[in-house]
């Protein structure tokens, strides 16, 4: 591929181009990188590389292996922040290709790490290199989609970010199938699965690279006229990424995302043991796995549903709904648990997780409303550091609160009650951040030279 093919100028769409060809390009990238959410399927096999059927002396421990995922998520947030402006400058095609090379390269370097039994190579490969692919890939189609769909920015970015949620649904059964296929007397199949997945995901992401197009400058959908009197928070100006992060609005939205994600991610991590402990004797480990699958579906579906709804009711109202409904649901979950209503309990968490996904998917359109389209991808990249913080904060908070409760003699079935009330507090902080949102002062708007 020549440099020309990858240049932003080569990706400008022809006049008769159908804009609905762009979301699949974005989804192709997000479906691939969404694999990270299913990385846990490799955790146990990675602890049995020597012993194969059981862990043997010299095998890595579970505690060492889970760091691969944590590093990848931390690097996702930081690389999105660091490379955001570069992504805006070079355009989506080059950024998507670099993301594909990093993500697939992460698998291949990881495979070498497995072959040499070097955990550090796995951390550097899948964790750091793959994590860069995750961060760049996550933000690369966002501003392009927003520019193609000025009339429905929530729906457009919701589709792509739904792909990220869907990626886990594909990767979990795919990894299990590949490991079963490659299993032999000398290998548990994880090395071969890494190589195969690296190749498959690279090819899949390249489809996005080829298909993506940017709209010509000042392009608008046929017949679409921007609202004469835009909604309260929607700006007509543009704010540069280097200026945006110095505004209070950026940090309020950072708080909105961080609180919304913390409340969801903490529960997502402990969903299986939580339902088994609250309904002890009534929910088996197998049923709990079904519960995790169900909430993953709602996590994915909520991304498209809520982001699309936000185009009609507004971004601030959508987050108000997330926080108020979230507080209501989290505060009633302990009562539902004590009452033994499994169906209501499952329904409550399905709604909570749909709002968790919805929070991710609606934030790019919220940023576009507040800061304009000029560098929305770069601003989104910087805001994703809230995800990295929440990724640590949520699980740590939930597991520590549970351990503290158990250490003080609280029965297992009730050990999550305080956690639920703490989540309500976090959602309240998010609610207040969202309530404080005001339009960005016009002095921050970018002035064209």
């Amino acid at each position, binding site marked *: 591929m020549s440099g020309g093919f990858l240049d932003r100028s080569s990706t400008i769409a022809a006049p008769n*181009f159908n804009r609905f060809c762009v979301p699949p390009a974005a989804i192709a990238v997000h479906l691939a990188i969404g694999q990270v959410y299913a990385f846990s399927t490799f955790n146990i096999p990675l602890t049995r590389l020597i012993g194969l059927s059981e862990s043997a002396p010299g095998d890595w421990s579970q505690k060492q292996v889970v760091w691969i995922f944590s590093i990848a998520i931390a690097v996702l947030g930081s690389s999105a922040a660091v490379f955001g402006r570069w992504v805006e400058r070079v355009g989506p095609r080059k950024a998507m290709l670099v993301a594909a090379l990093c993500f697939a390269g992460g698998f291949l370097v990881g495979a070498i790490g497995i072959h040499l039994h070097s955990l550090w190579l796995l951390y550097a490969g899948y964790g750091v290199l793959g994590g860069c692919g995750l961060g760049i890939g996550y933000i690369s189609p966002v501003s392009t989609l927003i520019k193609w769909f000025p009339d429905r920015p929530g729906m457009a970015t919701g589709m792509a970010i739904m792909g990220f949620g869907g990626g886990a*649904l*594909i*990767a979990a059964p795919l990894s299990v199938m590949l490991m079963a296929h490659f299993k032999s007397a000398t290998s548990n199949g994880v090395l071969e699965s890494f190589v195969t997945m690296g190749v498959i995901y690279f090819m899949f992401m390249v489809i996005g690279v080829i298909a993506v197009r940017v709209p010509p400058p000042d392009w608008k959908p046929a017949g679409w006229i921007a609202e004469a009197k835009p909604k309260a928070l929607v700006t007509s100006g543009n704010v540069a990424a280097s200026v945006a992060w110095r505004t209070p609005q950026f940090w309020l939205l950072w708080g909105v995302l961080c609180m919304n994600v913390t409340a969801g991610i903490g529960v997502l991590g402990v969903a299986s043991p939580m339902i088994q402990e609250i309904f002890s004797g009534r929910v088996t480990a197998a049923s709990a796995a079904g519960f995790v*699958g169900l909430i993953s579906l709602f996590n994915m579906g909520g991304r498209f549903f809520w982001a699309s709804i936000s185009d009609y009711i507004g971004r601030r109202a959508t987050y108000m709904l997330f926080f108020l409904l979230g507080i209501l649901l989290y505060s009633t979950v302990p009562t539902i648990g004590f009452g033994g209503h499994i169906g209501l309990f499952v329904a409550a968490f399905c709604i909570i997780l749909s709002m968790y996904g919805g929070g991710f998917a609606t934030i790019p359109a919220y940023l576009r409303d507040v800061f304009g389209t000029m560098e929305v991808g770069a601003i989104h990249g910087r805001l994703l550091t809230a995800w990295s913080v929440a990724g640590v904060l949520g699980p740590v908070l939930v597991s520590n609160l549970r351990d503290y409760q158990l250490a003080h003699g609280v029965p297992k079935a009730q050990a999550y009650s305080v956690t639920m009330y703490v989540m309500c507090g976090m959602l309240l902080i998010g609610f207040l951040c969202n309530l404080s949102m005001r339009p960005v002062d016009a002095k921050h708007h970018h002035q064209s030279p």
Partner: protein
Amino acid sequence: MKARLVLLWLIVGVPLAWGVFKTLQNVIKLLQ
């Protein structure tokens, strides 16, 4: 252009539908 549009949606739609189907299969199997 229409063929390209359909093809692109099939490329991403089929694997996604497969993933949703496999998950639902597990959910139903496990919740029974």
